[in-house]
């Protein structure tokens, strides 16, 4: 008996674990947690009073729901809107101009046709919708539209008077460029789409709308170039967006976690940007963008590793310079990754690698330091991470304090006090700076984490351990996929024709093809061509 009990316990334990880990395990949700959904009842089945009651009941005692009785002509109607989201100024104007004016005339709104005629006449330009069910009425009100219900009419009129107050389009804060467009996305999705449409005036640019978040009902748009983007990848993104079942979505990072390929990794499998020109560039490369209402960061999928080393500015400056800068980025990635661990490994296991004079000076500096190299590195790296996190979170007003404390107290004083050596300060500083080189912030985070693993392994196995972890990392990277595209493409699998815009950037006129690992529908961007040569001197004239 004992055994079976234990066995059962074990199974139970497993089940609990499975429940914790399971992504698809669907539990039954208790009924009071389910978001209250308005009923799918056609309006024509309800009397005017019953409809009013249902709407009032659905919204309960929220104070910002306004319901007023209005008269249009000879008909009685009821107007509903949330005063906090509707532009009330415009609403007043509209009511005065269009609806009240018609009171003089003998208009009777008794049927759907009447309503349609009136709406066409009065709101033909500004856009109106006729709603058929209570469900639509409720979601319309929530979206910030106003809804007018008329007695005896089987449909309701919904008008767009959304108060779209938000941040104005400003310069990007996280991805700045020296030369290039200075506008950036804002929180409002329609403004963002507007910014993209301004750059790509093409009827093939399409946006599909999804409503994600059972409770927040956030608008999410998937944009792609219909003619260029591979329809299989588009279908994959679409189906993944459709499958999302989550209560709330606030930022594109939420969506990113929900749609990227199921794998345990520290590397980002989707790119994000707040620059419209970057989005336009990637759309032209046959990628797909996902815009979330309420977030200025737009997702770009599929992403490959080399994308994180490119910046939109690469295309705006001389290609020799761009290629050089890209090389610097790759080097700084390696520096940010292995500099501290190489320090630990070399000092602990392979001091002979250093030139003798350098070795002597390093040892002289470390004479007063009581800790082994690995402890020293950990002290400084952790301190730096704390400083960095404090720098990001703290209020602007005290920003100066951190830089003074960081630079003077921790940097200089720690070295003088003999806790760490001077060379350690250099190592931490160069590692930190190298980590800020990336155009994409979330990629740098990956190398930040791996760095600590490398330091630990380097303290145990020296440079051999560092190499092992690097091989491990590369194997891991080559097993990743982003929406079916190998994460290390076009390096592994190696694709020769895509190398023009990876480690170096060749002149724009020479890159006539889109990246083939994305298998775009139209491979050629433009005709292969050369740069214009200087005009030939006319044969007749001589100087």
């Amino acid at each position, binding site marked *: 008996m004992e055994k079976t009990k234990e066995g059962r316990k074990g199974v139970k334990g497993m089940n609990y674990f499975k429940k914790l880990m399971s992504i698809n395990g669907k539990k039954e949700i208790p009924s009071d947690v389910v978001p209250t959904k308005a009923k799918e009842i056609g309006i024509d089945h309800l009397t005017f009073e019953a409809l009013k009651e249902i709407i009032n009941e659905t919204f309960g005692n929220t104070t910002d729901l306004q319901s007023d009785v209005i008269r249009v002509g000879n008909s009685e109607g009821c107007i509903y809107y949330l005063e906090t989201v509707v532009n009330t100024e415009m609403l007043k104007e509209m009511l005065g101009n269009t609806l009240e004016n018609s009171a003089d005339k003998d208009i009777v709104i008794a049927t759907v046709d009447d309503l349609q005629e009136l709406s066409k006449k009065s709101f033909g330009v500004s856009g109106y919708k006729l709603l058929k069910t209570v469900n639509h009425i409720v979601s319309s009100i929530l979206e910030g539209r106003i809804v007018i219900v008329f007695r005896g009419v089987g449909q309701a009129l919904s008008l767009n008077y959304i108060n779209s107050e938000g941040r104005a389009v400003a310069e990007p804060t996280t991805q700045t460029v020296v030369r290039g467009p200075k506008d950036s996305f804002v929180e409002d999705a329609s403004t963002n789409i507007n910014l993209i449409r301004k750059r790509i005036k093409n009827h093939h640019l399409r946006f599909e709308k999804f409503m994600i978040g059972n409770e927040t009902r956030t608008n999410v748009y998937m944009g792609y170039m219909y003619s260029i983007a591979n329809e299989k990848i588009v279908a994959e993104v679409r189906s993944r967006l459709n499958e999302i079942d989550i209560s709330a979505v606030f930022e594109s990072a939420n969506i990113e976690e929900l749609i990227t390929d199921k794998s345990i990794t520290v590397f980002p499998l989707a790119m994000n940007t707040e620059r419209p020109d970057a989005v336009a560039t990637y759309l032209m490369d046959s990628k797909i963008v996902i815009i979330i209402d309420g977030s200025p960061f737009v997702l770009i999928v599929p992403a490959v590793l080399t994308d994180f080393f490119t910046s939109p500015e690469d295309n705006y400056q001389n290609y020799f310079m761009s290629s050089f800068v890209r090389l610097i980025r790759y080097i700084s990635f390696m520096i940010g990754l292995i500099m501290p661990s190489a320090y630990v490994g070399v000092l602990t*296991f*392979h001091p*002979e*690698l250093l*030139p*003798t*004079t350098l070795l002597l000076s390093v040892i002289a500096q470390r004479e007063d330091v009581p800790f082994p190299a690995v402890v020293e590195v950990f002290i400084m790296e952790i301190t730096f991470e704390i400083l960095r996190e404090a720098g990001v979170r703290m209020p602007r007003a005290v920003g100066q304090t951190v830089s003074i404390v960081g630079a003077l107290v921790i940097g200089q004083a720690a070295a003088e006090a003999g806790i760490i050596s001077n060379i350690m300060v250099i190592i931490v500083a160069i590692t930190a700076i190298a980590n800020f080189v990336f155009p994409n912030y979330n990629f740098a985070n990956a190398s930040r984490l791996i760095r600590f693993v490398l330091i630990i392994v380097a303290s145990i*196995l*020296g*440079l*051999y*351990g560092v*190499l*092992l972890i690097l*091989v*491990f990392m*590369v*194997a*891991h990277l*080559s*097993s990743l996929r982003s929406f079916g595209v*190998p994460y*290390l493409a076009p*390096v*592994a*699998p*190696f694709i020769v024709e895509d190398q023009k815009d990876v480690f170096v950037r060749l002149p724009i006129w020479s890159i006539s093809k889109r990246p083939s690992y994305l298998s775009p529908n139209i491979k050629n961007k433009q005709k292969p061509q050369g740069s214009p040569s200087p005009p030939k001197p006319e044969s007749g004239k001589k100087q």
Partner: protein
Amino acid sequence: MIMLTEKLSLTQIFTMIINFLLGSSIVVGVGIEAKRDAWLVVLIGMFIGLIIMSFYLYLMSLLPGKNIYEIIEYCFSRKVAVLFALVYLSYFIYISSRVIRDFGELITSAILPATPIEFTILMLMLVIGYILYLGIEVLGRTAEIFSPYMFLFILLLFIFLYAGEKINLTNVQPILSSGIKPILKSAIPSIIAFPYGELIAFTVIFAHIGDFKITRRVCLISVFVASLILLSSVFLIIATLGENTAARANFPLLIAARLVSIGEFLERIDVLVVFIMMLGILIKSSVFLYGGLKGIEYIFKIPYRYFAMPVSCIVAMFSIFISLDFSDHLIEGLNIDLFILHVPLEFIVPIFITFIVLVKKWKKQRKEEKGLKV
């Protein structure tokens, strides 16, 4: 049984074969017993290697899409094939652990003298197990990414040794001083079996390749390139160290790299060499282990990924138990294995199988012809 179809690209095959051939042969050096004509041994080995490679390719092209185990099944029956698979998979796993042992000894004697060899080997095997768990495709991509660095480092080693005026051509001259006999003696059969005969492990991998015609060319080119690199490394060893030091050294290339000294700044670049070797070892051991895993998959009909981690741990353990010390290890590898394992399993059995496949195919063809006539 769900098995993902894995495809290897030509560059992946190319880099894998090169790294495979360089693998342990660059660690311990080949043909050193022929003294100053060692590089000629590799030259002869290259031609034989090309023949061996084309023989294996021919065997694979007879029944495209089938690996060696399935080919044996085609020849006899599943029961016999399981028996053969057992022999082959233990052979592959054995070689895999030998390769790992080579490298473990190198690490212990060259860069981490105080760390127990068990630990260094286990860490390497865990990485290999992880790679194989992810699949042969990932192995191919890893090879693809690291190979350029390997070529670069070999080139750098050449430049450094040359610039440091360490290469002394008188060490190599006179060529063929003691006649052609010692060269042939060390070339046949040892260089045939090691490293070229070991290409038998690729008979498991070639089943993943689509186009055979281009593959054949790529494979032969990669054997050629690998031999050139091997040849130049052997030449480098003899030219820098001289025949006597080279013959005495356990890891000649490593000793040669230690001579590098440029401007009192670039010194002791052993780690670079260890990197070159590590990649080769990693690929070689993984390919052998993959061959073994595929054999297990064939016997038990369970995807090989499940076995990747446990079997790599077994290899780690086995590579320690395999021999008492390094000289014991070398003697076992050079003298005993050669006739008991390498020659029969790398040549006699495959030739036998090829013969049977040909006979079977011929019979089938004749039957069909007869059927047509009737």
